[in-house]
């Protein structure tokens, strides 16, 4: 900004302002001067620095040239180093080739030695030696040898001759060894068989060796098995295990195969080590033979034990019984021992005892096979962990699983398991029916023999199913058990319950009817009715005990299953759980049966007997004055009479009912008493003293019923005791003390609605209706 601009920009209107401006300008001038002087003072300093820079410039030039020289030198050195290392590399290559060459020379020398040795060894029939030579020859790179022969033009004949000799010798040895092996097999010379078996891997015939050896062993085992099978019965007789003859034979066969694998595994690992599939190859061949032998055995088994015939019988009888009736229960009990053919004639059924031994034998057979498969799997696992590279392990195990799954043995076991299930089911159902049919009651006991017998049979069946080692089979049997309980057993329990409890002439109408029928038929019925009555109670107890047993059965089976199958997959776990739940569902059916029986008792025993007793209550006036009260209390009160009657009723059941059923009966009785008593109370009127008497009576009744059982029946009495409390009030106004819960802690919540309270209060003849209506509830 120029001075003129500054001047024009300033306000020069007044003198003072002009002065002020002047002063400012002067100040600025002084400042500028100061700055200029400072700059001038620095001038020499700057000049000296400039000259310094000029001098160092020349120095820098030399630095530049030096560094470029250095650069050139480094590049040079690098080039040198590179050429040196190239030489080293070439040297290395040369050394490699030299050693390769040496190897080839060695090979060539060995070749000559081998070719000479092999002929000599073959001539001397020293197969081990010749095989060693051939193994050495086979270890050489055949391609390389041929090229070597091409390379060495001069002595081409000698090298190619040697190769040719050896190749010929290999062929010859292979044929020879195979022939010798076959001869050894023919002459059954185990030592030489093993000797040649060990030679096979040396001449590069791993597969052939395994195959030949396995076939040899199979042959041996087959003849052995055949002989044993022929004598199966005799051997068993000698060992006095006739029942398990075929299971024992099967065990022997499987043991033989397992032993072969066990014995030969180390040999194979030592001699056939590099061919990882050797053992599995052997197992596959053995398995094939094993299938055939087991098949023979099972054919014999089926023939001798008449499996076909028996399963046909079982099938027929189950079909008949299925066709024969929708009403399973009573019908099948009657049909025990023999069933009626449609034509009318009866045919003897297959006796379950007869097939018991066969079932046991089948389970043993199945378990043995499971054991055998497990043994083989473990052997292979050990084998592959030590000898097989990691990545092939899975492959081999998968191959084994496939061999196992597709094997005939497996298939036959599935078939035999199916037979087992058929027979086991028949055995179980028939035995249960028999147990039901032979049901015997011993006086003094609460339940009859049937419950113990049936559950013993069922437990036996499940345990036996567990010994098959098959989860599927076990589950199937558990399902069958549930079906059997649900069907025959529950039906047998329910049949007498359905007929009802003959109430024993307390009810006059029934007594009259009974007498009339007696007169008509000319025979006395009372002992008959007693028997029916006893039977009713026994079956009721049976049902109750059965619920307990089924729980025990379920728990023990769960433990045993866990013990038998320690390693189960989640799916198998769910399968087992689901089947066990089925068993639990049967328990609910049984409980329903007990309830059903209890209802029968309630309608045919409790209700009709209570009725006249409660009616007695109406005969006692509850409008009493002091004298009447004294007289009443001196005489026999209602409650005394009532309790004596109840006690008589309960005592008649106490000894014959199981504790739980008895408790249930008391509970039903209590419910019924309170309902009927409440009805009776509504029919009469009370005054103050009458209310007092009622309250005493209800208390006495409550304490009696509570004492009669271990169950709590007190809550059933709550309503009636609250009614008694209402009728025992001094004044209506007292009610408020009882009504609101905060005033009265020990009183439980009211079971009566306000309307009901009013209704009951009107029963007191001395309470005024208006007061009752006025009540705030």
């Amino acid at each position, binding site marked *: 900004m120029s001075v003129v601009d500054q001047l024009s920009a300033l306000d020069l209107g007044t003198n003072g302002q002009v002065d002020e401006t002047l002063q400012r300008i002067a100040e600025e001038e002084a400042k500028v001067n100061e700055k200029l002087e400072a700059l001038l003072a620095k001038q020499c300093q700057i000049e000296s620095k400039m000259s310094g820079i000029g001098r160092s410039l020349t120095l820098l030039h030399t630095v530049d040239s030096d560094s470029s020289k250095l650069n050139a030198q480094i590049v040079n050195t690098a080039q040198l180093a590179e050429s040196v290392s190239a030489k080293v590399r070439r040297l290395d290559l040369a050394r490699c080739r030299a050693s390769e060459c040496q190897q080839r020379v060695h090979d060539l020398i060995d070749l000559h030695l081998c070719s000479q040795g092999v002929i000599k060894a073959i001539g001397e029939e020293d197969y081990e030696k010749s095989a060693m030579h051939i193994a050495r020859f086979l270890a050489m790179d055949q391609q390389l040898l041929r090229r070597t022969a091409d390379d060495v033009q001069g002595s081409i004949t000698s090298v190619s001759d040697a190769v040719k000799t050896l190749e010929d010798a290999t062929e010859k040895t292979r044929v020879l060894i195979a022939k010798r092996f076959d001869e050894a097999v023919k002459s059954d010379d185990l030592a030489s068989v093993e000797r040649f078996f060990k030679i096979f891997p040396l001449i590069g015939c791993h597969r052939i060796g395994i195959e030949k050896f396995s076939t040899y062993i199979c042959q041996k085992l087959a003849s052995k098995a055949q002989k044993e099978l022929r004598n199966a019965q005799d051997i068993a007789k000698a060992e006095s295990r006739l029942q398990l003859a075929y299971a024992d034979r099967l065990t022997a066969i499987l043991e033989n195969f397992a032993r072969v694998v066990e014995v030969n595994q180390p040999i194979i690992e030592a001699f056939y080590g590099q061919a990882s599939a050797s053992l599995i190859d052997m197992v596959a061949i053995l398995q094939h033979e094993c299938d055939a032998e087991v098949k023979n055995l099972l054919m014999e088994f089926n023939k001798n034990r008449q499996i076909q015939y028996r399963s046909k019988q079982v099938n027929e009888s189950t079909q008949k019984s299925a066709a024969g009736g929708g009403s399973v229960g009573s019908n099948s009990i009657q049909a025990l021992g023999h069933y009626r053919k449609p034509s009318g004639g009866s045919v003897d059924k297959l006796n379950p005892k007869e097939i018991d031994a066969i079932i046991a034998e089948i389970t043993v057979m199945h378990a043995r096979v499971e054991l055998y498969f497990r043994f083989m799997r473990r052997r292979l696992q050990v084998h592959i962990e030590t000898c097989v590279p990691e990545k092939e392990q899975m492959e081999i195990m998968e191959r084994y699983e496939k061999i196992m799954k597709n094997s005939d043995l497996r298939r036959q076991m599935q078939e035999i398991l199916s037979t087992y299930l*058929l027979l086991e089911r028949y055995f179980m159902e028939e035995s249960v029916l028999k147990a039901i049919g032979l049901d015997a009651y011993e006086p003094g006991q609460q339940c009859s023999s049937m419950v113990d017998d049936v559950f013993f049979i069922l437990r036996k069946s499940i345990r036996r199913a567990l010994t098959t080692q098959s989860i599927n089979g076990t589950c*199937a049997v558990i399902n069958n058990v549930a079906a059997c309980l649900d069907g025959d057993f529950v039906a047998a329990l329910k049949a007498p319950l359905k007929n009802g409890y003959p109430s024993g002439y307390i009810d006059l109408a029934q007594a009259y009817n009974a007498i009339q029928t007696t007169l008509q038929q000319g025979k006395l019925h009372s002992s008959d009715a007693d028997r029916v009555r006893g039977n009713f109670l026994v079956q009721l107890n049976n049902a109750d005990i059965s619920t307990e047993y089924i729980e025990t059965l379920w728990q023990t089976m769960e433990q045993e299953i866990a013990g038998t199958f320690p390693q189960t997959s989640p799916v198998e776990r*769910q399968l087992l759980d689901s089947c066990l739940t089925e068993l639990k569902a049967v328990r609910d059916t049984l409980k329903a049966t007990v309830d059903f029986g209890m209802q029968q008792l309630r309608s045919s025993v409790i209700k*009709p007997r209570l009725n006249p007793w409660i009616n007695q209550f109406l005969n006692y006036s509850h409008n009493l004055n002091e004298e009447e009260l004294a007289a009443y209390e001196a005489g026999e009160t209602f409650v005394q009479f009532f309790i004596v009657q109840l006690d008589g009723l309960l005592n008649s059941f106490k000894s014959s009912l199981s504790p739980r059923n008895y408790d249930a009966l008391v509970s039903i009785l209590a419910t019924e008493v309170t309902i009927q008593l409440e009805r009776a109370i509504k029919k009469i009127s009370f005054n103050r003293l009458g209310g007092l008497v009622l309250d005493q009576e209800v208390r006495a009744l409550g304490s009696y019923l509570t004492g009669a059982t271990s169950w709590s029946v007190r809550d059933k009495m709550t309503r009636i005791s609250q009614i008694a409390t209402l009728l025992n009030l001094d004044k209506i106004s007292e009610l408020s003390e009882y009504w609101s819960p905060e005033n009265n802690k020990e009183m439980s919540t009211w079971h009566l609605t306000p309307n009901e309270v009013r209704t009951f209060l009107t029963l007191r003849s001395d309470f005024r209706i208006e007061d009752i209506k006025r009540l705030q509830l």
Partner: protein
Amino acid sequence: MPHLLRQNLLLPAPPTVVMHDPRTHLRHLPPAYSPAQTPLSRDRERDFAPQVRYHLELPRRPKLRPCKVIFVGDCSVGKTAIVNRFCFDKFQSNYKATIGVDFELENFSILGHNYGLEMWDTAGQERFKCIAGAYYRNASVIVVTFDMTKRETLESAKKWLNSALNYNTGQKPLIFLAGTKADLLTKEEFVRMERVAGLAASEMQAEYWSVSARSGFKVTELFQRIAGLAFEEAIKQEIKYHKGTAQEKGKTDTSAKSQTFDLRNFISSRFARQKSGCAC
């Protein structure tokens, strides 16, 4: 500034989304394969019955046993394949025979209630008949399966159904007829086969479905339908049970009445006896 921006972006809070698997989460009753070919829902509309919905609204949650579904049919018709398609959404074309039974559990959520479907995939081969038969008991649903490319498997479907029904004499199970391998048929063959199978289904009182495990055609729909119908049936059972217990009380009252009736009978008969006594 940038953090402020980020805050602004975050401001609309992410809605709390609970991921429901639409496969097993039902709010409505899935429709039938074809409305004409179902005996199971003639009386109902396209959705759960109103009393079922009402019952589910009650505070007391019903205790439901898992539903047992059994698959039966000739061997290699594809029972395992459709179960695997639904449970694991995978398909294997190489045939592997089922040994005895296979078992899968799938949990459904229907109208907010958990409902388990136990699938019992039985073996079709003859030699497993005894094992498989032992599992037929107490089934809520029977799915009879046949191969749409093989007529004879449809013929034997009836036999399978009968043998399964033999074990279920109590509660009548729901029956489905499922034709598998629908993808292997041409359009005309498919239409023809469906007509034949539809007739067979109505004869069996079954609901008909054509499915394909390879392409997944209608597999999920079939299982949803099974779950929906079985669930409705279970709830109806429970409603009936509650009514039954209510009626039981009524019944005890009537039995009391019959008792009084007996008494009256007695009185009249006593007179009769007195008369006869006079005659003596």
